[in-house]
């Protein structure tokens, strides 16, 4: 198999693009996709500092790597979830990455913020572990960005993540979730920072290949709590569709963004308040994060 651009031996075939690339041309293709994402959705300007949420996995470290290479001013944020050896290993990857590139990395422990690590939160709430974990991450990413004076948080969500989330929303016709699914969510309140996903145009195989070719030491092992997660089941289903029909995931997500999403945006706007306890944004009186912390406090 030959590289589409230069004709030398290819290292990766991208069936959805009906193309194969050698390593240098694939890396350039990857960077171009990130540039296009940032440009199309005006994710951030050249002079804006960006908080990059990193987990130690391939996606977020690949994202951070590209943004550093592109000359953006970045700060990493690692949230220590307290998930046993998985968190120890993933934190070490992030710290090594930041040290090697001489970029700042903030570390916050969920245990310090909520009162217990994710495994305890899971047993206290009796909800799927990803539920309390996702809630804590979204809250802390926003709060840390505000505290540090950064206007935007970038996460490593890729095309597969976005397609799987969309699939889940459509399967249950969660029409309130559909307008919020976007590669870039603007700040709609002074205490909500912009949230962007510069990897939304790239599949997780592409982000894995980028991380491998750039020799990024990422954690390959999966979060132990992700086993059996609904999003994984959705990804497996979509991967079978993709195998039978290359480009299926891309068409599903991009078709939604270009054609269907605007139709769901007419839903009435929600009223945003400030949480009576912590001052962060909520639709109620007390935010979901403070309610979670209360629940943990009562049980631990």
């Amino acid at each position, binding site marked *: *198999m030959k590289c589409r651009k230069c004709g030398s031996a*290819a*290292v*990766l*075939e991208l*069936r959805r693009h009906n193309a*194969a690339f050698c*390593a240098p041309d694939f890396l350039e293709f990857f960077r171009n996709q990130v540039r296009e994402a940032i440009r199309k959705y005006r994710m951030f300007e050249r002079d804006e500092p960006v908080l990059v949420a990193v987990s130690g*996995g*391939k*996606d977020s470290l690949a994202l951070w790597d590209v943004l550093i290479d592109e000359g953006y001013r970045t700060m990493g944020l690692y949230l220590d979830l307290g998930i046993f050896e998985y968190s120890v290993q993933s934190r070490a990857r992030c710290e090594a990455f930041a040290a090697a590139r001489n970029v700042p990395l903030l570390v916050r422990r969920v245990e310090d913020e909520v009162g217990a690590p994710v495994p305890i939160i899971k047993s206290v709430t009796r909800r*799927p*572990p*990803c*539920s309390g*974990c*996702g*809630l804590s991450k*979204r*809250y802390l990413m*926003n709060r840390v960005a505000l505290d540090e004076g950064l206007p935007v948080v970038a996460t490593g969500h890729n095309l597969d*993540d976005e397609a*799987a*989330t969309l699939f889940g929303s459509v399967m249950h016709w969660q029409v309130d*979730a559909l307008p*919020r*699914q976007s590669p870039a*969510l603007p700040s709609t309140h002074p205490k909500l920072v912009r*949230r962007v996903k510069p990897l939304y145009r790239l*599949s*997780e*195989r592409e982000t*894995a*290949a980028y991380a*491998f*070719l750039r020799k990024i030491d990422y954690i*390959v*092992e*999966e*979060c132990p*709590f*992700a086993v059996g*997660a*609904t*999003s*994984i089941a959705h*990804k*497996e289903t979509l*991967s*079978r569709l*993709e*195998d039978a029909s290359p480009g299926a995931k891309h068409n599903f997500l991009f078709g939604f963004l270009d054609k269907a999403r605007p139709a769901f945006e007419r839903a009435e706007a*929600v009223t*945003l308040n400030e949480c009576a306890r912590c001052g*962060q*944004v*909520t639709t109620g009186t007390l*935010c*979901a*994060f403070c309610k979670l912390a209360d629940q943990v406090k009562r049980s631990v």
Partner: protein
Amino acid sequence: MKVLLRNPRREVEVAGNRRVKDVLRDLAILPETVLVIRGDDLITADQVVGDTDTIELRPVMSGGSERAPLP
């Protein structure tokens, strides 16, 4: 040939001198769900792997449930 699999980490022995795509089919692994690594290189599905080669099939799927409601 040896095939290194992850999550959980294990090694299996399969017949070599075949194309990567045939090895993947035998192991019931979709090509889009893994990187195929030989030594320090990525290799494409049309490449032939020898009987004495070792390849790693590194899964690319990750993540748990991610929703985007307001906090």
